[in-house]
């Protein structure tokens, strides 16, 4: 892939013909049509990409992983473009990951976050988003405590918006990096043509309040996995209609032996204080992954966690340190997956074609 990928000038693309999507959950699958995957204008929900779009991101991420292994892990793909991060919630990890991804693509970055700049001065989300657009942002990466805030922003600005986590709603790039991590860990172990066909994934913990859960369930299911939820009823939505689930369980123990993947959600301390579960201690006793439970898992099963781990809560420290707990590679993979997303939303169509050819070349060479 090397140079041809990036020698293109991506600065003068005509605007995409895709309409602005203001959180259209109806059309989740519209963006992928037969033939070559079509690029959504914004990434608000993981479903916006469709199955083919997710596959494309994962393939692109492979190409960028190769780039990242070079002595100078940087390509000029988005030179002259500006990636703006707009964070209304403190999440240094996610922001840094996006900024690192942007820099490796040679994009400029602008960063607005809570506690800095005008975010605190009573300026509305609308005004801040439009200000960033006026300052030359080519894409807005939005993190917000309110579900749907990135969708609102997408309806107000003329540039693509990437949802970097909104309330309890979604965190699509987290799900994409989880899919990428899982692919790397499993090799091509799946059954059938789907990437995760035949895989059994259990998502464990506070699903109700989890944007990660809403994204990973969809993404894993779109790639063919059988996804189930494990949580006390107080931490499940009262309705699961419309969730692409194979099932759910109120107990973790019966699930352990059959799962290929345990996805352990983070427990917010305030949820364990008596209103959703009686105590963190009681939660840990029923849903914490300790060594006893770990030994009941399949030998080749893997553990995912969106991080940061509450050691001793979701995962016992000795479990967190097992090789099958992929937390560290999840973090590392976050950068290349976000590079892929930025490139997909900002790169020109011509560029994508080159990159696709290139990435397939890389795939061949690395002998997938």
């Amino acid at each position, binding site marked *: 892939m090397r140079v041809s990928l990036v020698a293109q000038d991506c600065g003068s693309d005509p605007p995409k013909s895709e*309409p*602005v*999507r*203001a*959180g*259209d*959950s*109806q*059309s989740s699958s519209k963006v992928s049509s037969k033939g070559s995957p079509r690029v959504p204008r914004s990434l608000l929900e993981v479903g916006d990409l469709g199955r083919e779009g997710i596959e494309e991101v994962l393939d692109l991420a492979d190409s960028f992983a190769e780039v990242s292994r070079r002595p100078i892990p940087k390509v000029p793909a988005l030179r002259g473009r500006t990636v703006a991060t707009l964070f209304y919630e403190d999440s240094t990890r996610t922001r840094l990951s996006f900024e690192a991804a942007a820099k490796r693509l040679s994009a400029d970055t602008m960063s607005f976050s809570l506690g800095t700049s005008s975010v605190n001065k009573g300026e*509305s*989300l*609308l005004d801040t988003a439009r200000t960033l657009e006026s300052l030359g942002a080519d894409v807005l990466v939005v993190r*917000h405590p*309110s*579900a*749907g*805030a990135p*969708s*609102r922003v997408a*309806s*107000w600005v003329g540039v693509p918006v990437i949802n970097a986590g*909104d*309330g*309890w*709603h*979604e965190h699509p790039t987290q799900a994409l990096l989880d899919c990428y991590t899982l692919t790397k860990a499993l090799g091509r172990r799946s059954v059938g043509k789907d990437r995760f066909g035949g895989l059994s994934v259990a998502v464990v913990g506070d699903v109700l309040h989890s*944007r990660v859960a*809403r994204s990973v369930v969809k993404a894993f299911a779109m790639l063919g996995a059988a996804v189930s939820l494990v949580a006390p009823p107080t931490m499940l*939505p*009262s*309705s*699961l*209609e*419309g*969730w692409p689930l194979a099932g759910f369980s109120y107990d973790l123990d019966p699930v352990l032996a059959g799962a290929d993947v345990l996805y352990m959600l983070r427990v917010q301390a305030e949820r364990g204080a008596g209103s959703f579960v009686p105590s963190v201690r009681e939660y840990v006793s029923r849903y914490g992954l300790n060594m006893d439970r770990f030994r009941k898992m399949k030998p080749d099963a893997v553990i995912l966690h969106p991080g940061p781990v509450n050691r001793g809560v979701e995962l016992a420290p000795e479990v967190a340190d097992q090789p099958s707990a992929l937390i560290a590679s999840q973090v590392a993979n976050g950068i290349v997956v976000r590079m892929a997303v930025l490139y997909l939303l900002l790169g020109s169509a011509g560029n994508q074609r080159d990159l696709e050819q290139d990435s397939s070349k890389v795939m061949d060479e690395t002998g997938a």
Partner: protein
Amino acid sequence: MPELSTDPKAPCSAGPGVVIKGGTIVDAAGQRACDIVISRGRIEHVQPGCEVPCGAKVLDASGCIVAPGLVDLHSHLREPGGELAETVESGSRAAALGGYSAVVAMPNTDPPIDNASAAHHVLDLGAHALVEVMVAGAITVDRAGERLAPMAEMASMGISLFTDDGTGVQDGGLMRRAMEYARGLGVTLAQHCEDRSLASGGHMHEGRWSSILGIPGIPAEAEELMVARDLMLARLTGARLHLLHLSTAGSVELVRKAKSAGIKVTAEVTPHHLCLSDEEVASYDPLFKVSPPLRPVEHIIALQAGLEDGTVDAVATDHAPHATQAKEAPFDQAPSGMLGLETALAVVLTELWDGRVGSSPQICGEKTTDIGATRQTTGTARSSHSPGMAGSRSIGPAGGRHRLVDLGACLPSGIRLNLMQILTLLSWQPASIARLGSAHPSVLRPGAVASICVFDPFTRWVVDPDRLASKSKNTPFAGVELQGQVRHTLVGGEPVVIEGEAQR
């Protein structure tokens, strides 16, 4: 009802007045093709083919329904305190354009209407308004739900409805005392039913869509619990209870049983709860945020059935203006509420009318006017919108996407109401709940105060937020084509709306 037909020999010469010509009257007495002569604020004659007195203003009503003016039990006029969103004047203009001749202003202003002088202030503002403005007083001081507001001093001004609307009185013991006290004053308590312990933190109906969208939900039971409690308290105290904006199937069923058990209860629903479902929230557009929240279709069907069988007594708008910037926020940060006054009649006609004129017996006049159930007119004073919009069901210039509930055709229930039922719900039944008495007659007959709504039930128009008279634009029906348009509104004999234009 012989008193309905005027003596044909009576002179049409009581000075310059107004004549409503060529329409079909639908009121509590039935339906008939008659002209109406109005003089000095009252109806003088009701008869077919009436001669126009010299100097009288003629309002053409051909092809139109002529009905007692509509009465809204639930308007947030925002003054004092919220003048950026609405004033008594702008809200009353919106009301008049919507066919209303009287509205009840809710007391959740800033400061709230929880004492006589606050009520006087709003009534004084209302004295100059285009429609009759009544106020509801608060049940508790500052609407805080802690101690009783001076209901007697407000009742002595003629206020007959009391509510902490925006919130319900949470404390059952306090609500019991309020009901007992209200019974002694002969006034009605109106409740916004929502149990805070179940509802707090929620921003939409709890169910399939809240689960998918990740928006904290409010279960239907939060409303139903308070409905059930208050019905029991009404039984305990013998007080008269009015339930505001019911939104769930369970609430309707509770009221149905309570009515059959003889409990003195009345209930209203809003136009938006009759046609919009929680699926609309998938846009994350706060235009669809309202309290109580939009519910799934099975609840909508139950509300419509409640209208049909008389369990629900009134359609009330819950007209709740909000400045544009307040709705330019993430869903959970935006305030609840939708405009309603200018679209209510058309929404109900579009969604629920059986499309027929002429099933009721004639009372006077030679024959029931057939105003053509298949006719479709376009283009009246307020509907000169781009033809491209007409027929389109998609809403939302803001978000682009969006499929609106297909008004009038969306539900499997097939519930349809006739014009008499619709006007009962929008006009004289709410007038009776608000105790308007002779100020708002249910029958258009000589001697009655001339508060009248004239509308063409067939005209189609597209809602354009920029053309609404309200100071706010937060209608959920932007871009939606509705059927039925108000042509003239008279309040106490004064034509405040002529040919769809407010006269002041």
